[in-house]
């Protein structure tokens, strides 16, 4: 193939957005601009200073500020009265604790300085999530310092019959307790709590309802009711299993987004990555999705489906396996049902060969495969049937007990929609006098059709422990804020037999009291104390001291953070009860277009909507921030003449509203989806007017609340809406940035098919006598979960800029995760995630253009950024081929953070002000800390002593940092790997971040080209990949 031809055909085989793929005029115009928005046009700076005016004023203030020997302002040093012996100003303390991010529980280590938590990372020794921590887990820090939290107990003055027009009055605990205690005497108490795995709190809650005459209902908006019901029918025990992706060689996911949003995504990612070694065992993941997700993007093969095809697909697979290929023996009675779906593959665009191949692959991996379905997208009318069918398929494949642990499953997945419906019935029957709502927000999470508000009118007293004056707290009579988990004592059992301690790392910031304490006080006031202890802390401590056998063991527990082990053995087969199959019925009828609701990695059910880090976390799939939108297929967009941001009228049988669309490659033509968690109305300043409230689409009539498969009509309104996307504005110019190959190809050639460039340098190169830092990113391990982005934001005091400025390309994240598509967007696409941070180039293009030497090379190879020297010319950013430099346009610094949010700032990192360029530093503060520690102990620095923030939370170990001068370091080994490459090698900027190419375990040829021409014309010579010395 000639060079020109090759370039022509391969140029856009990898693309970030559809606009880029087709090089639309708007895209080209945008991409040619170096900066998306011009500072000269900027008129909305609050201070209202035009540039020239600013210069004039600056002149005067320089004259005033630097003159005279009198310091202004005078600063004070305020020492302790009695310094606690464990606190040394300037030295961080680390505490073992645990947090729950609303989806998944984590054992964490909390870094504190001078008594305030600063950074959360996973507890590396804990066998569950290990060092991994989700983006939501890391964000717990900012939620702790949220200025909009309820700061005192509140008594709402309102007529209980007409809840809604309240006037919150802050009160002290005594007056609130008096009211509660008086009410409790009347009996008929119900507690409605979110998911909790705390054995101590459960104990208190149960005793409370026993002693005072009540009942506990557990409900969370995103729950596993379907799985629990199905497990009850199939195995006689309602449970949520733990999937062992590390033991599975073949995984088929039917909308089970286990890498992103389903069950325990962080731990799952960790286990999944363990069995994805391209040089050793590598599992295969096939995904069928009605909404593109992290799982579908990380799959080796994927097909878009409609929600109504989920159950038929599983039945079709059972049919193919049992009655066509006869590889497993199913009960004959099911044949009449499965036979109807023998040809389901035609509906989803597969050939029979492909479908048969899939079935036989599963058959080859009996006992080491997993079929998984679940999450909101599968909650159609048939959700329980789907789970039963999946359980049966797994049973036929002997997976239950082997790769799917039913008896050693997951805790904190006990809540059921049925439990909520029971409560609602009880209220409507007038059987509830007092309702205590513990840290959930049903008023937002339920659709209007549930008439929960009307029901609350029938309750004499509603008490809530919510920490924000959210939709539910506004309707309650009393708000008894429980405080943040990082302020309260507790314990957790995220997996049976594996306990973690929840240790507060800060004094309660506000006048709050944990739920356990409140229950103890109220029961004592009512004369029916649930415990003899004074406080919940004493209760937890006594419980564990007696259980573990002594004070010493309790201290060890605190130190280590957890007790127990994960189950590593093989379970006895769970014993599938085939009569459960009689419950399978296909009720969901196919519609031309079906709507599903789904959850996003960052926003989940909306509980962290007031945490700006989560709002500005680009959705891993769409890269859109601060919004939800209707995800539609490119073919549907063509048919209805829609583009990103076109407003459409969305109408289901239950609800109708307008939503903007986002055209998502790989989406099935007949499936549209929108994320829940947005459009909150109360509970803080940040969550207001963000996105659209789509909860009203939920149907709550069934045992399992319906979230997907609604027949929907979509009509263009003609209006447009601006969606802020952090990616898509840059043009790749056809260069090979994200590199992937198939396992087959890689095994054969031991090469990733990378185009090699002949490089010569006009520079002499640097010498490194001490350390020489380098960072490696394994694209094969990276799932795109985005935890690193939030960890970096937390560690490096990175501001949030808001939707308006993301639209102008002014987002500040130092690390971004690029998402590249390849393939035919109308059928199925592959995606690669690529974290990109400052590449710390050897021949850094930014360094040579800075007029004030604000960015220079260090003798350890870092590209140092000196904020106080920077005058803001932005030449460096202009000259950076990787576009990793961020310019601070506004005062996002400490003084402009609302109290107490400034407490989240890391004192080791300079808080940058306006007009300064900033970028990834390789966490230079951590490098220095590591070097200092080694020096203090009089030893050389060991590999692994220094971990960057992004590395320290990565669940899949996709990032490694270390010294390239250390021959044995892990990063050196990665740099020698066959899969290693650098971005834009032909520029010879010689980055010291190297990537390991992604390997896809698929028999087909990949959509993208592997020998694209980087637009240069030099010879094709072998080159040394290591930079010159």
């Amino acid at each position, binding site marked *: 193939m000639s060079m020109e031809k090759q370039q022509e055909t391969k140029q856009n085989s990898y693309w970030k957005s559809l606009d880029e793929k087709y090089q639309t005029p708007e895209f080209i115009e945008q991409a040619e601009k170096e900066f998306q928005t011009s500072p000269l046009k900027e008129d909305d700076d609050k201070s209202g200073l035009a540039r020239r005016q600013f210069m004039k004023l600056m002149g005067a203030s320089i004259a005033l500020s630097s003159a005279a020997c009198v310091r202004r302002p*005078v600063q*004070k040093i305020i*020492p302790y009265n*009695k310094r606690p012996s464990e606190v040394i100003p300037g030295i961080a303390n680390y505490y073992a604790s645990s947090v729950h991010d609303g989806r998944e529980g984590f054992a964490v280590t909390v870094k504190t300085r001078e008594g305030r938590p600063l950074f959360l990372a996973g507890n590396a020794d804990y066998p569950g999530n290990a060092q991994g921590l989700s983006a939501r887990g890391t964000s717990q820090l900012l939620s702790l310092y949220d200025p909009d939290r309820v700061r005192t107990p509140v008594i709402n003055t309102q007529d209980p019959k007409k809840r809604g027009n309240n006037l919150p009055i802050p009160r002290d605990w005594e007056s609130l307790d008096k009211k509660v205690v008086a009410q409790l005497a009347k009996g008929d108490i119900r507690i409605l709590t979110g998911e909790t795995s705390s054995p101590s709190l459960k104990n208190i809650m149960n005793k409370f309802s026993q002693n005072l005459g009540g009942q506990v209902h557990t409900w969370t908006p995103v729950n596993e009711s379907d799985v629990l019901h199905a497990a009850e029918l199939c195995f006689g025990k309602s449970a949520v299993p733990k999937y062992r992706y590390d033991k599975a060689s073949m995984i088929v996911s039917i909308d089970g987004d286990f890498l992103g949003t389903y069950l325990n995504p962080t731990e799952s990612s960790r286990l999944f990555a363990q069995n994805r070694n391209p040089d050793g065992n590598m599992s295969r993941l096939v995904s069928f999705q009605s909404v593109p997700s992290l799982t579908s993007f990380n799959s080796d093969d994927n097909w878009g489906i409609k929600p109504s095809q989920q159950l038929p697909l599983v039945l079709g697979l059972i049919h193919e396996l049992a009655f066509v290929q006869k590889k497993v023996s199913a009960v004959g009675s099911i044949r009449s049902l499965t036979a109807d779906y023998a040809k389901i593959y035609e509906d989803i665009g597969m050939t029979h060969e492909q479908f048969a191949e899939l079935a036989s692959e599963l058959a080859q991996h009996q006992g080491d495969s997993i079929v998984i379905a679940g999450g909101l997208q599968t909650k159609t009318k048939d959700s329980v049937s789907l789970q039963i069918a999946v359980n049966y398929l797994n049973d036929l494949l002997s997976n239950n007990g082997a790769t799917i642990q039913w008896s050693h499953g997951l805790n904190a997945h006990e809540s059921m929609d049925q439990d909520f419906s029971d409560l609602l019935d009880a209220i409507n029957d007038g059987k509830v006098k007092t309702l205590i709502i513990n840290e959930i927000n049903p008023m937002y999470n339920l659709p209007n059709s549930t008439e929960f508000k009307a029901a609350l009118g029938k309750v004499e007293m509603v008490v809530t422990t919510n920490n924000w004056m959210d939709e539910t707290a506004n309707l309650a009579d009393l708000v008894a804020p429980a405080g943040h988990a990082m302020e309260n004592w507790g314990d957790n059992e995220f997996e049976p037999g594996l306990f973690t301690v929840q240790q507060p790392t800060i004094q309660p910031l506000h006048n709050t009291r944990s739920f356990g304490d409140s229950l103890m006080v109220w029961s004592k006031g009512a004369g029916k104390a649930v415990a003899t202890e004074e406080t919940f802390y004493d209760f937890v401590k006594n419980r564990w001291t007696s259980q573990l056998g002594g004070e010493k063991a309790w201290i060890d527990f605190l130190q280590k953070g957890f007790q127990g082990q994960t189950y590593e053995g093989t379970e006895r087969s769970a014993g599938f009860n085939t009569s459960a199959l009689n419950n399978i019925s296909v009720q969901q009828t196919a519609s031309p277009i079906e709507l599903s609701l789904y959850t996003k990695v960052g926003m989940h059910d909306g509980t962290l909507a007031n945490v700006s880090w989560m709002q500005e976390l680009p959705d891993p799939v769409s890269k859109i921030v601060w919004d939800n939108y209707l995800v539609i297929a490119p073919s549907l967009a063509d048919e209805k003449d829609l583009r990103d941001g076109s407003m459409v009228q969305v109408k289901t049988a239950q609800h109708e509203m307008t939503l903007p669309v986002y055209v998502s490659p790989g989406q099935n033509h007949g499936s549209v989806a929108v994320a829940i968690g947005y459009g909150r109305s109360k509970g803080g300043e940040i969550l207001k007017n963000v996105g659209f409230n789509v909860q009203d689409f939920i149907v709550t009539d069934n045992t399992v609340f319906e979230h997907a498969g609604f027949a929907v009509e979509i009509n263009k309104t003609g209006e447009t809406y601006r969606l802020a996307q952090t990616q898509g504005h840059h043009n790749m110019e056809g260069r090979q940035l994200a590199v992937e190959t198939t396992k087959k190809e890689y095994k054969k050639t031991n090469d990733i098919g990378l185009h090699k460039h002949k490089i010569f340098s006009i520079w002499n190169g640097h010498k490194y006598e001490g350390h020489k830092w380098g960072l490696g990113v394994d694209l094969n391990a990276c799932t795109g979960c985005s935890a690193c982005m939030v960890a970096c934001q937390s560690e490096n005091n990175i501001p949030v800029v808001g939707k308006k400025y993301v639209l102008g390309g002014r987002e500040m994240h130092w690390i971004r995760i690029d998402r590249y598509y390849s393939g035919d967007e109308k059928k199925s696409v592959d995606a690669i995630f690529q974290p990109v941070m400052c590449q710390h180039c050897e021949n850094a293009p930014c360094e040579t253009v800075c007029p004030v030497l604000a960015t220079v090379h260090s003798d350890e190879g870092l590209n140092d950024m000196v904020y106080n020297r920077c005058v803001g010319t932005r030449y460096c950013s202009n000259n950076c081929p990787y576009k990793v430099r961020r310019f601070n346009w506004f005062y996002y610094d400490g003084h402009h953070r609302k109290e107490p949010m400034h407490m989240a700032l890391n004192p080791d990192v300079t808080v940058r002000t306006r007009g300064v360029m900033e970028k990834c*530093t390789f966490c230079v503060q951590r490098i*220095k800390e590591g070097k200092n520690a080694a020096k203090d102990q009089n030893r050389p620095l060991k590999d692994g002593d220094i971990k960057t923030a992004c590395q320290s939370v990565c669940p899949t170990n996709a990032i490694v940092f270390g010294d390239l001068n250390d021959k044995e370091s892990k990063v050196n080994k990665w740099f020698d790997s066959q899969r290693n490459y650098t971005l834009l090698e032909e520029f010879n900027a010689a980055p010291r971040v190297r990537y390991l190419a992604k390997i896809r375990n698929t028999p087909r040829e990949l959509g993208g080209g592997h020998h694209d021409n980087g637009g240069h014309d030099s010879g094709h010579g072998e080159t040394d990949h290591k930079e010159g010395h």
Partner: protein
Amino acid sequence: MFLVQRSLKLIPLIIIAMLFANCEWGSIGYNKGYKPDQPIPFSHKLHAGEYKMACVYCHTQVEVAKHSAVPSLNICMNCHQVVGIDKEPIKKLRQKYFDGETVNWVKVHMLPDHVKFNHKRHVHRFSTAEDRYPACKTCHGEIKQMDVVEQHSSLSMGWCVNCHREQEPKGPLNCSTCHQ
């Protein structure tokens, strides 16, 4: 008219020149010689000089942390439980201590937020465990003779860098050595 306009433009320059006139040239903005009054007239001359108390007796963490830290009040009370309890300033100190309050000392040596200085490294480099004073003296001057502490060195970047260049073994000169 033209001349008037021209001379008007000179006014700011004249003002600046006047303001700088009473400062030592070369230390503009660096506060060398800054000697503020403290809420309690603590004398280093008395404590460190006359009584020969070791610097690290009060500045306990200077050997282990980047901040030297002003001692917490309980350290003062080690002696002032019994010593000098009839003196006015010490009465004030004791009152603060027993009330659970603290003393708001005026900061003398101030580095901007974008400069990270590590006391531990420098103290270990310039002195031995027996006597830390040589290290302290290098930057803070003869503290043992100061009744009221004043800023001895300019603490300018040039001043830091010169030392890193000249002292053997040489200190690192990366920007990120101090700016991070």
